[in-house]
């Protein structure tokens, strides 16, 4: 399912969608925002000044399809629901064209193929009006302000969290956890050569290094092992000595200048 058309700011009183100009090679429209296929349909019906209980289905279907094509042309993401509605309209249109079944009894009510759509439109329109009511209320409400902070506020805020917060926070913790695991793996990738290079650079600038301090700096066992091997390697190959100044004391890595 594609993402719906969403998150444009919308002013009920100012914005409408309208076809601005239509010529053979160009179709200009000013699109407000349609909250869905039902919204678009209502707009087209109103545009045609048609009666909702007697929708001129052929005209409306053509208009609807024109609009959907236009949205595609303009590279506006057309949600799948718009296409589903298009198919439904075409179906209703074709059912309207079918000749009446002659075997049907005269007094038998034949269901208008448009009835279900009309019911949905009427139901939808109520909520659309309710949305407008909410819009107006929030506009008024935005002109009302609560008091500024006072001293006692700091000490008596209620637990202000919902299950959604709980879940979002949990997700974040898990994501962070994953991140940490990744970083650990990254650190483990410090190679022996790299470790030797690092130790040598530090030895050169600091003169001597505490072996215990080096090992404590290591974050993982793997790093510690690498560091240990690196120390042995440096002592073996370079002019570096291991010193222990007292029994069980710290072992010092010291450069021997020749």
């Amino acid at each position, binding site marked *: 399912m594609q993402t719906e058309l*969403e998150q444009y700011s*919308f002013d009920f009183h100012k914005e409408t969608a309208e076809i601005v100009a239509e010529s053979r090679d160009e179709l200009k429209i000013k699109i407000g925002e349609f909250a869905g296929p039902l919204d678009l349909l209502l707009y087209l019906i109103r545009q045609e000044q048609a009666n909702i209980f007697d929708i001129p289905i052929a005209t409306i279907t053509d208009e609807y399809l024109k609009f959907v094509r236009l949205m595609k042309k303009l590279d506006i993401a057309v949600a799948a629901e718009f296409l589903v509605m298009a198919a439904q309209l075409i179906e209703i249109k074709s059912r309207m064209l079918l000749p009446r079944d002659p075997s049907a009894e005269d007094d038998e009510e034949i269901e208008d193929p448009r009835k279900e759509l009309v019911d949905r439109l009427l139901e939808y329109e109520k*909520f659309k009006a309710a949305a407008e*009511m909410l819009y107006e209320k929030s506009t008024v409400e*935005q002109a*009302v302000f*609560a*008091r500024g902070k006072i001293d006692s506020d700091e000490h008596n805020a209620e637990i202000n969290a919902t299950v959604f917060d709980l879940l979002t926070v949990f997700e974040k913790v898990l994501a962070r956890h994953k991140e940490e695991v990744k970083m650990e793996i990254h650190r483990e990738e410090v190679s022996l050569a790299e470790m030797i290079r690092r130790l040598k650079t530090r030895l050169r600038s600091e003169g001597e290094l505490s072996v215990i301090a080096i090992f404590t700096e290591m974050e993982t066992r793997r790093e510690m092992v690498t560091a240990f091997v690196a120390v042995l390697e440096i002592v073996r190959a370079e002019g570096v000595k291991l010193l222990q100044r007292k029994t069980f004391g710290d072992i010092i890595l010291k450069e021997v200048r020749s």
Partner: protein
Amino acid sequence: MTKTAQASEKRELEDLSRAVEALIFVSDEPVTTRLLSDVLEEDRELIEALIEDLVKAYDERNAGLQIRQVAGGWQLSTRTECHEYVRKFLKTRPSAKLSLAALETLAVIAYKQPVTVPEILEIRGVQSASAIKTLLEKRLIVTKGLKETVGRPMQYGTSKEFLLHFGLKDLTDLPSIEDFQDLVQ
């Protein structure tokens, strides 16, 4: 009742009214009559009468403030008439408006709660996922448990924040959805 007794009773009522005003002010969210009557140890009816008088007094003296009923409680707030100055002072702009899709979704949730995502889709005729996410993030809606039906879908309803945001006393303060029927036909 003697004159002195009357005078002392009047005095007590004044003290009580002051306390009510002070508590409505210190509370960081709308305060219920019940909580006020608990703290002040007085009948709820008396507290209500005192609040009504306070509301009237603020209105009559044409104050910059008002006491009003919102989200199930009483709150002291600025009057709408001063909003331009207040906004200039706080350097705030009107907060971002909800998108049309979000508003519609919210309307469906407000009137049909508790309601599931498929039920919202049924009415709106379009997916409402990102609208619902926005509304959850803005705390205008909350989850209302899982529905005991196939797939156990999550149910949604409006929050206290919703009442505050739209300045509603409670959910019954919403106009009836059937009233909109007359408007649209």
